[in-house]
């Protein structure tokens, strides 16, 4: 006979402990426990069966995994907490006696200090694990970097956050790993790809944060404590991977002059051999360091450091002088690399066969796509007007290889002035400009983000100052089948590309407008029908649109096209009717077959169906809104057309 299992020795009863039990076992206060949980990343669990986990009671309690708590028993930080408690008692005693010198020496020499290094390593055994979990940490650090110093938030914390975020941004810029940018109402979302992991973080707009009263900053600061350690270690690793010395030194003059992350002086590691890979980095560093000799004269504090730097610069300045040349060289190098790849690809494919050719070309396409994105702004020299968010835009543009400068009033260290000839774009956010340079394009900040998200430089006309901007869409939304896809400015752009003469002559468009409006009306109605009939009508619409465009390109009159279309549609509609009959049949068959399902299967089936229905319901209202919107647009266009005809 099998051994009789005792109650509470196995399963949920043994796996979970309530919070109070945990506190009793660890012999610490709730506050300490919470801190420990935050630092160690321990979280409550929801057992499958609460009753089994809590000795038959169903009272609402928090459960922790039993082993989590047991691991906590040996936590060095826990011991430090205890030591600190004892220390606090000693200190209080001494202070009460008025022995201030003793208190001072106690404070200086006996204060227990704990480090979180081992926790970082324990929670993230590999570097990639740490990068994967960087989202929250970065968002938190970027928030605290903009926080005002209060009695709860100390100056050191804020400065540390500022520094860590600046370092991280430098890495992103240097490695050009930024991928997506989104201006939301909450702040700016960035997404970077680091070590194959996508890291997304949110940065608030540059405003003074109002410190709310309903937030427990102890919790936030405990999180921040861990995140600072984590990001520090990650920064160290990231810097060493691009052959930079960590930590970079801070140029105080620049720092005070609001240079942002330019205030950090980067140094390349000595030991790196000047091989092809590191060349890129050293060059980048060099570009960074070129202003440094001037600083030597200015500040005595950072004199020694900079002296050595000067030497290094002298060493490095063997081959090139300006940024321009650097970049040209770099571009050439990239191009040659690409060429080689192209040259080798077909030969390999020829040997291996057809299957491999596809994969190779795919890989090639992907890599070139990434490379193109990384060098999106490499040929643009962008000047930021003073009303634009300088730090954000500078970070974004430089992450994609662009050269940026800004107004001196916004911060020191601008590489070139506003009247520089080489400037190709000027980002401004005012409807009117005082003086306009003719040889550059004036754009609004959204152009930068939209260009990045669409992975090409979008037509800048839509983004001219004072113009109504096309909608700024989230690059993070991946439209699934049946989802509503809003129209972007890009579609219209394609049209404008094809017929640029039309774009220049707005009257021409308006002449055509009447026709188009009518046809559009019909289209819309059709679309509506389709929307009702089928679940995924969007594809059909797209196809229609494409065929329309093709017809237009072929020179077929729109009316002709419209005549053709219903002919095409008619069989479709008939098919639709048939299909409905068939569908009914199918449905009936399903209903009949569902009779033979077991109870379990039936329950599962109804559950899945229910959730599917719910999802489709969620999508629907937007669909309706979209249609409504379209109708409104059409109505507007019609009234406009009427006005014109009256004229």
């Amino acid at each position, binding site marked *: 006979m099998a051994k009789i299992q005792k109650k509470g020795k196995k399963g949920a009863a043994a*796996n979970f402990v309530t919070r109070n039990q945990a506190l009793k076992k660890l012999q610490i206060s709730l506050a300490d426990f919470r801190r420990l949980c*935050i630092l160690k990343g321990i*979280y*409550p669990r*929801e057992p*499958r069966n609460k009753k089994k986990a809590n000795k038959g009671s169903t009272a609402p309690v928090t459960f922790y995994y039993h082993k989590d708590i047991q691991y906590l028993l040996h936590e060095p930080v826990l011991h430090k907490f205890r030591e600190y408690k004892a220390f606090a008692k000693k200190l209080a005693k001494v202070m009460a006696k008025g022995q201030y*010198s003793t208190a001072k020496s106690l404070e200086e020499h006996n204060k227990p200090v704990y480090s979180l290094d081992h926790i970082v*390593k324990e929670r*993230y*055994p*590999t570097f*990639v694990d740490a990068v994967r979990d960087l*989202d*929250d940490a970065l968002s*938190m650090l970027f928030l605290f970097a903009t926080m005002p110093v209060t009695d709860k938030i100390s100056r050191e914390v804020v400065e540390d956050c500022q520094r860590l975020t600046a370092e991280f941004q430098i890495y992103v810029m240097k490695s050009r790993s930024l991928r997506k940018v*989104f*201006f*939301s*109402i*909450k702040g700016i*979302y960035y997404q970077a790809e680091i070590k194959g992991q996508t890291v997304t973080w949110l940065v*608030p*707009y540059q405003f*003074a*944060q109002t410190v709310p009263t309903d*937030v427990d900053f102890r*919790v*936030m600061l405990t*999180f921040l404590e861990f995140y600072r350690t984590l990001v*520090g*270690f990650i920064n*160290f*690793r990231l810097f060493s991977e691009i052959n930079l010395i960590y*930590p970079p030194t801070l140029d105080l003059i620049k720092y005070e002059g609001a240079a942002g992350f330019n205030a950090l002086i980067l140094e390349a590691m000595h030991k790196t051999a000047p091989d092809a890979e590191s060349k890129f980095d050293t060059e980048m560093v060099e570009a960074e360091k070129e202003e440094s000799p001037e600083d030597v004269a200015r500040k005595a504090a950072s004199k020694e450091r900079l002296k050595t730097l000067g030497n290094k610069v002298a060493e490095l300045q063997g081959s090139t002088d300006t940024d321009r040349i650097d970049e040209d060289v770099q571009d050439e190098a990239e191009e040659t690399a690409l060429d080689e790849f192209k040259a080798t690809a077909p030969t390999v494919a020829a040997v291996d066969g057809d299957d491999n050719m596809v994969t190779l070309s795919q890989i090639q396409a992907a890599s070139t796509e990434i490379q193109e994105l990384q060098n999106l702004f490499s040929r643009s020299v962008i000047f930021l007007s003073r009303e*634009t*968010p300088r730090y954000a835009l500078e970070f974004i543009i430089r992450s994609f290889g662009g050269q940026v400068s800004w107004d001196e009033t916004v911060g020191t260290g601008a590489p070139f002035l506003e009247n520089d000839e080489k400037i190709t774009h000027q980002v401004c*956010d005012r409807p009117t400009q005082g003086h306009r340079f003719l040889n550059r394009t004036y754009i609004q900040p959204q152009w930068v983000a939209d260009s990045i998200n669409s992975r090409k430089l979008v037509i800048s006309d839509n983004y001219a100052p004072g113009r*109504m901007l096309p*909608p*700024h*869409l989230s690059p*993070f939304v991946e439209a699934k089948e049946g989802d509503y896809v*809003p129209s972007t400015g890009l579609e219209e752009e394609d049209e404008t590309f094809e017929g640029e003469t039309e774009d220049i002559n707005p009257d021409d468009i308006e002449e055509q407008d009447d026709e188009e409006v009518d046809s559009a009306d019909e289209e819309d109605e059709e679309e509506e029908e389709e929307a009702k009939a089928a679940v995924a009508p969007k594809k059909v619409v797209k196809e229609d649109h494409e065929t329309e465009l093709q017809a237009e390109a072929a020179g077929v009159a729109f009316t002709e096209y419209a005549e053709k279309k219903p002919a095409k549609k008619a069989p479709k509609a008939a098919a639709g009717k048939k299909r409905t009959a068939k569908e009914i049949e199918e449905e*009936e*068959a*399903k209903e*009949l*077959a*569902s*009779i*033979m*399902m077991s109870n379990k299967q039936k329950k*599962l089936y109804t559950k*899945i169906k229910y959730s*599917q229905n719910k999802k489709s319901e969620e999508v629907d209202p*937007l669909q309706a*809104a*979209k249609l*409504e*919107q379209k109708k409104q647009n059409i109505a507007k266009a019609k009234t406009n057309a009427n006005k014109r005809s009256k004229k």
Partner: protein
Amino acid sequence: MRERRATTGFKVAGIATGKSNGAKSSRKEPIKATNPKQTVTKSKKRAAPAQEEVEDDLEDFGNVEIDINSDEEDEEIDENDAEESDNEVEEFPEDQSEGEDVAADENEDEDEEEEEDDDYMAGDSLDEEDWNEEVKISNDSQRPTKLPEIEADYDSDSSTEDVENTVGNVPMEWYDDFPHIGYDIDGKRVLRPAKGDELEKFLSTMDDPDSWRSVAVDKEGKDMVLNDEELDIIRRIQGGDIPDADYNPYEPTVEWFSSKKEVMPLSAAPEPKRRFIPSKWEAKKVMKIVRAIRTGRIVPRKPATEKPRFYNLWGDEDEPREDHIMHIPAPKMKLPEHDESYNPPEEYLPSEQEIQAWKDLDPEDRPKNYLPTKYNSLRQVPAYGRFIQERFERCLDLYLAPRVRKNRLNIDPDSLIPKLPSPKDLQPFPTQQSISYEGHTGRIRCFSLDPIGLYMISGSDDQTVRLWEIATGRCLNTWTFDGVIQSIAWNPNRDLCMFAVSVGHGNVTLITPPRIGSPEQISLTDEYIQQGYAAMSTAASDDKEARNPIPWIKPNVSDQEKLGYRVHLSHTQAVKQITWHRKGDYFATVAPDAKNLAVLIHQITKYQTQAPFRKLKGLVQRVMFHPTKPLFFVATQLYVRVYNLMKQELIKTLQSGVKWISSLDVHPGGDNVIVGSYDKRLCWFDLDLSARPYKTLRYHSQAIRQVTFHRRYPLFASASDDGSIQIFHGMVYNDLLQNPLIVPVKILRGHSVVNSLGVLDIEFHPTQPWIVSSGADHSLRLWT
């Protein structure tokens, strides 16, 4: 800090001091508590010179005190000390001449001990400044206060007595031959006082009134007068009393040491010596540290080595560790959607009502924590007010929200639907309604088709029975009764033309419908009936009338001819079901309320009625004859029992698992039974397989009223109160190993539900794949 009086000793610090001075002072001072350390060390030294090392430590420590008498000691120590460097001397104050300083010094030492103790434990070491500071503090706090001298008397008179003769306790007769009797304190002889002769003695006794109380004292050599107290003592001793007058032998006892716990202990034990000696081991420890500091092994107040705050935490050889099986990583932040944009597409902007609805919701209930807003340019975007709160909420979620792993089923729901043969391949089966038989005005509870499939009779709540021609829907005949038609059944024998109808409260009538049957049929039916009459009359003559539980009544002639009535059987309770044996001679009736007469089997040819069950378990719902064997199925509420009528025994009990059986039918093959129930279930029993259902299906939304098999085609059907008829393909194979195939093929909808009653009865056509149904909506329909 402990109070200590240490005036006898002085520091040994390399310089010899005046011994005589010290000695004198020590003599004169009343010694309460000398520092006992000196004696300890002294004795040790003398005993074991090998222990000089220990001494070394102690002298280093500097508070070794030495008795003045031990000259050699001093020298030894001096020598030892001389070995040490002279500089050290400065560390220790040398002023020994004044007691106060020494005391202070000692205090300082002790302070230092404590200080060192603390510091050592904390991993630190001494500092000279600290040292001096401490000394100062101790000087201030340890200012000696004058205390009254303590008399060291122990209540003994002898010590205070002024003794002249110092010979001690020796026999005085030793001095008998000498002129003196001893020596005084200065060593001079004490002369024996002159002694008078006996006369003088006598005279003196006469003169002296105290002579009677005088006693000669040898040591003094003269008489001593006893005082009153002494006399009293003598008297008491003589009287055998306790000499002390004050002593009360009967004083009440005071329980000093009781079980009661006192707050303040009442121990008068003197302070032990160790309280007044500095700990030797502590001193050793401290000296160890001091020496370590001197040699440089310990560097006091050493600044901690600056470790870089960040370093390469992750080595290159780090192997990815698999997450613990119970680890649930926190979900990532939700990525923003289009409507969070500062410039969203117009269609994402909420209308006024939506904004109002959003505002009216509680913040926790809002599906999104922001309202989509459009700004014309980035410059106009304000700071987001709830940024910190949202980050805080995220923090709370990360460490307070219980995590649970939810297995999201990624199953295509259609894959759950079993793959069944297409109904098209299983044709024929009824698919649509073709004829509706109009005429009844009440709900049609029952109907029956004749064995050939030409005619149909139906009984309704409007108290009529109608005869229909199936193919045309024409009503051929109508019988009117004075009660609700409960059940109706056509005789299955093709050679007969007869049906049985149960009316109202237990009247069962056998009817041969006029103008329908062929002459052969009519004659055979007549023959059957006549046989019965004959049998009955013989039975009556045999005086066995009591054999029939219910009477068989012959209808009157007019009814016989006009309406075709043949026999009346009057049951005691309402007969709910009539079912025929396949040969058409027997039929069974069910009257559930009739207790042991609930099931009766009637034989027409003998006009005989039997109650096969003496006692019935449960409420009988339905009965059924086996199509080929002499078996009889009885369905009670929960079970179906199968009896062998020949052997008169129970063969099998089918456990349906349903709550209330409503209907029952046996497959024409005889090995399968279907049971319908009021709790919406249909059970298929395979009699060869098990007593439990082979399959239980639940698909009707209301109670099942009737189930039936087709006699020829592999079809069966169920009718329910939800107004639908479900047709199944139910193929039974001859191979015993192959399970029956059940495929739902059609749902027939058409009957409307009246008073929550839908389809009341169904029956398949005997030859065609048709089905007839009757409903509570007064309709009778043929589905083909």
